[in-house]
């Protein structure tokens, strides 16, 4: 046995060591951003603040009483860190972006920066955590009693002090220590590097202590096998009858919610996180830490049950086993380990809770009542915050102490912790909805959490006073006013359930139901929707949503004043200087742009919470007169104006395009019109020419006398000839006009093209011979079938041949006709040794009324022949063009697709 004084002195000395560690940790972190304090290892160790004295002492007791149930408390967090990495990462990202300081701040910020939700969550957290803090006080008290031994209890400085007094002393000491530790300054991000360093150190101490005890137990118990086989001999076995029952799954679920929602876990995992990548390491390292913590729990519990006397407290096996073996040193180390787990929990939990209380309850009150006198106190808000937090810490530990006081007769540690877990789990549905469900609304979440809390208080919190209050016992047995279906541990007649599973089931089921149904029937406000998008889509879009402030109503001076009140003169000045430097201007010249106000709001949120920061800046920037609704309306109107002008722009653009099209069509029409004029003028000319001869000679013939018979004969014959020419011309014009419209006066049928060519040659034979032409034949193909009309094809060949005759003024005129098959095409070349066609006219000659400028020997054509021929060939899916011929003159090439040879 150790002396009580010695034990207490050791504990105090240990706390002193922690304080020194925290102090230097803080200085080191401030001096060097990249110190080892910012490493993933320290981060992971600080997360293991999850393992409290409940784990250290309670898990052994739990294992001794209920077998494998203790495992769920480790399994839940493991599942979250390994399987739900993305959830944690999302939380960390959101919290960094929005300077979130706590669970209450997260929910309040997400649901429209609601102060009321913040207050509700804070109150529930403070009340819900009280049993948990009581658990730590009880553990420390019991451990001091156990290690100092009840026989010596009356001695030394502890003389005349019972366990309540001892617990009170512990609570007071913790309060003092936490105040010294955690509220030395108010930080923008609420990160406490010094505290985290101390917590990490404690994590190492408690693990080492438990492992040391475990190794010792296994050593004296003759190895794992020895311990378990002795237990079997004594008829002891690990009780697995309740494994995997409803309670087992309930504690598993609760621990999943707790690792995320517990204020201290949120603080270390999310708020104190300085680098998202640290989560990766923690993802495997933290589960590994918990595994190491749990490895020796069963051996210690089993060995304790076999060797310790009947009726000894299994929660204290870790201390009493070494003491029973006379290992006082090891017992003291184990005590320090347990002490470490308790102190680290109390320190961090009360810091986290005090931040919530000061930001969500005290700060809004201060803002409300100090609105009219914001002169003079430069450091006011900053100092006020610190005082508020110190008072909060006192309050929180007092609550824990009172809970301990009222329930001190209850024996086991673990059930007390689970009461807190159930309370904190009420935040979990809301937290999931906050970061994953856009439609979750403030009203629904508030109602859900409140309902869940009331059911928890009724079914879980109240029954824990069973042993101390006869009234509660009656209530438990008979229900309020004798209504049996409202009995706290048998709601709606659900008798015989495990009380914890019962409470968790009803509170969480109704919580979730209210949240889902409520969100479906209520409409979120504008600010809620903005925040919902910012939270749910945190990985989808960069940057923060546009803040809704009316610009221009505040000066940089006003803003500086606010910043100075909250952040203190030094940090406010630093912030303004930094912004000014970024923009390259003088700090006095900073414009209160929405971006700047948004940035300032986030900085302030880090100190006083999102809701308070928003209220505070709104007062200064917008004045109290402009409500958010009006702001949104203005934004809507602006949006509408923008849309309207965009629509107008679009309409006028369409009009412009239409006008452009009209103009194009007009130009085309004018072009067509002028083409038509040109055509008519050409036709007129072509018609007037034969008409001139006809009229003139008719007049000559009509005049009396003077003409001999030969003359008369000649003139009549000219008139006849010109009339025919006129008729032919009109026929050609109509023909061409029809062809140009795409009409075809014939059916395309398979015809022998070669036969048509031979016929044309024989028709022209007389003409050729008369003009003294020498006709040469090049290559000739045999019968070749094409799609077309034999007469029309013949007409084209005649046109080509007669052109060659008409324009050829060579002394020894020659004509060369070739037909061949090339690549599936039937090709006919008609070449002559005439003057050829000058380059300038090569495209012109296929136009209507174009006649070779060099002049034809016989100038009787209207210049429509080639135009018609080309149209005819086109209607047979062929082409007619000029080619490089074998003779010096022109060469026309006709090309038609071949159908097949017969």
């Amino acid at each position, binding site marked *: 046995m150790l002396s009580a004084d010695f034990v207490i002195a050791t504990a105090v000395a240990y706390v002193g060591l922690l304080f020194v560690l925290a102090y230097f940790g803080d200085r080191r972190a401030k001096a060097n951003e990249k110190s080892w304090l910012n490493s993933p290892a320290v981060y992971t160790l600080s997360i293991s603040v999850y393992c409290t004295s409940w784990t250290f002492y309670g898990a052994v007791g739990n294992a001794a009483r209920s077998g494998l149930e203790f495992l769920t408390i480790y399994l839940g967090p493991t599942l979250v860190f390994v399987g739900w990495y993305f959830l944690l990462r999302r939380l960390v990202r959101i919290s960094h972006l929005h300077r979130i300081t706590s669970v209450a701040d997260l929910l309040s910020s997400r649901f429209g920066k609601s102060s009321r939700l913040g207050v509700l969550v804070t109150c529930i957290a403070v009340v819900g955590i009280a049993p948990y803090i009581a658990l730590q006080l009880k553990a420390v008290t019991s451990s001091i009693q156990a290690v100092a031994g009840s026989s010596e209890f009356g001695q030394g400085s502890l003389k005349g002090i019972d366990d309540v007094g001892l617990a009170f002393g512990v609570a007071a000491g913790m309060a003092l220590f936490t105040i010294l530790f955690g509220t030395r300054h108010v930080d923008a991000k609420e990160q406490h590097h010094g505290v985290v360093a101390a917590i990490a150190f404690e994590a190492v101490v408690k693990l080492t202590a438990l492992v040391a005890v475990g190794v010792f137990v296994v050593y004296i118990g003759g190895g794992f096998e020895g311990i378990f086989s002795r237990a079997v001999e004594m008829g002891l076995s690990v009780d697995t009858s309740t494994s995997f029952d409803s309670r087992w799954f309930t504690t598993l679920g609760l621990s999943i919610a707790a690792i995320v929602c517990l204020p201290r876990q949120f603080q270390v995992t999310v708020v104190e996180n300085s680098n998202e990548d640290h989560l990766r390491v923690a993802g495997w390292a933290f589960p590994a830490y918990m595994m190491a913590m749990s490895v020796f729990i069963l051996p210690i519990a089993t060995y304790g049950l076999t060797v310790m006397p009947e009726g000894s407290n299994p929660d204290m096996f870790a201390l009493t086993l070494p003491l029973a073996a006379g290992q006082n040193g090891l017992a003291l180390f184990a005590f320090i380990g347990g002490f470490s787990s308790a102190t680290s929990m109390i320190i961090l939990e009360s810091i986290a809770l005090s931040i919530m209380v000061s930001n969500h309850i005290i700060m809004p009150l201060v803002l409300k009542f100090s609105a009219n006198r914001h002169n003079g106190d430069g450091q006011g808000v900053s100092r006020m915050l610190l005082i508020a937090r110190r008072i909060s810490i006192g309050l929180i530990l007092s609550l824990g102490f009172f809970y301990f006081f009222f329930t001190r007769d209850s024996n086991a540690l673990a059930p007390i912790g689970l009461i807190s877990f159930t309370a904190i789990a009420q935040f979990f549905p809301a937290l999931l909805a906050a970061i994953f469900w856009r439609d979750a609304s403030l009203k629904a979440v508030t109602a859900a959490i409140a309902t869940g809390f009331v059911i928890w208080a009724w079914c879980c919190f109240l029954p824990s006073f069973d042993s101390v209050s006869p009234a509660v016992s009656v209530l438990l047995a008979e229900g309020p006013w004798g209504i049996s279906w409202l009995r706290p541990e048998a709601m709606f007649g659900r008798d015989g359930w495990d009380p914890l599973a019962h409470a968790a089931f009803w509170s969480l089921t109704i919580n979730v139901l209210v949240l889902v149904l409520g969100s479906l029937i209520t409409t979120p406000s504008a600010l809620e929707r903005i925040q919902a998008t910012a939270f749910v889509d945190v990985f989808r879009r960069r940057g923060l949503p546009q803040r809704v402030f009316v610009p221009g109503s505040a000066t940089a001076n006003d803003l500086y004043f606010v910043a100075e009140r909250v952040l203190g003169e030094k940090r406010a000045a630093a912030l303004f200087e930094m912004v000014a430097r970024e923009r390259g201007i003088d700090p006095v010249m900073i414009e209160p742009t929405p971006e700047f106000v948004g940035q300032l709001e986030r900085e302030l949120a880090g100190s006083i919470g999102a809701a308070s920061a928003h209220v505070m800046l709104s007062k200064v920037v917008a004045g109290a007169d402009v409500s958010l609704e009006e702001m949104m309306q203005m934004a809507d109107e602006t949006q509408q104006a923008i849309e309207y002008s965009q629509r107008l722009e679009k309409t006028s653009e369409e009009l412009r395009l239409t006008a452009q099209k009209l103009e194009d069509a007009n130009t085309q029409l004018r072009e067509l019109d002028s083409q038509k004029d040109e055509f008519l*003028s050409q036709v*007129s*000319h072509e018609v*007037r*020419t*034969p*008409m*001139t*001869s*006809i*009229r*003139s*000679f008719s*007049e*000559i013939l009509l005049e009396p006398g*003077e003409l001999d018979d030969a003359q008369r004969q000649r003139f009549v014959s*000219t008139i006849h*000839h*010109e009339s025919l020419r006129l008729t032919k011309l009109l026929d050609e014009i109509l023909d061409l006009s029809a062809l140009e419209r795409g009409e075809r006066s014939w059916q395309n049928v398979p015809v022998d093209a070669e036969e048509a060519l031979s016929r044309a040659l024989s028709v022209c034979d007389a003409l050729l011979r008369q003009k003294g032409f020498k006709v040469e034949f090049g290559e000739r193909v045999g019968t070749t079938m094409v799609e077309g009309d034999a007469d029309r094809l013949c007409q084209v060949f005649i046109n080509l041949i007669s052109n060659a005759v008409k324009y050829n003024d060579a002394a020894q005129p020659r004509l060369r006709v070739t037909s061949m098959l090339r690549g599936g095409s039937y090709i006919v070349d008609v070449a002559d040794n005439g003057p050829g066609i000058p380059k300038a006219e090569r495209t012109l000659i296929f136009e209507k009324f174009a006649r070779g*400028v*060099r*002049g034809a020997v016989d*100038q009787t054509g209207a210049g429509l022949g080639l135009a018609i021929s080309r149209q005819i060939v086109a209607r047979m899916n062929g082409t007619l063009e000029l080619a490089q011929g074998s003779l010096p003159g022109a060469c026309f090439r006709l090309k038609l697709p071949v159908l097949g040879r017969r």
Partner: protein
Amino acid sequence: MRTLGGFLAVDILIAEDEPSILESLDFILRRAGWSIGSVTDGEAVLDGVRRLRPRMLVLDVMLPKRSGFDVLKQIRADAEMRSLPVLILTAKGQQQDRRIAEDLGADGFVTKPYSNAEVVGAVRQLLGDDAGPA
């Protein structure tokens, strides 16, 4: 029938490419008592004027190789031929052609198909003599 050879001056030089029209003009003007020379394309006109020294020129607009308007422009630009009276013949009856002809300095303008009397009257007016038959 055509006055060729170049040594004998003619009263009228006709520039017309349509053979039958040329024949009719030749017939009616000769019948009216004037001596006639003729060319059938634009390029031959100036040469013909120099060679035959006609008292006037009957000029078709749509001539091969060089248009009547081109020829008229050249004549009016030539110091020797500037004062030669020119009667324009055209089958394109538009106002536009008439205006161009006037701008270029044509002395008369007759649209095809013409009446023989119209041509003879216009020629007589330009030649300023009453030698021909009524």
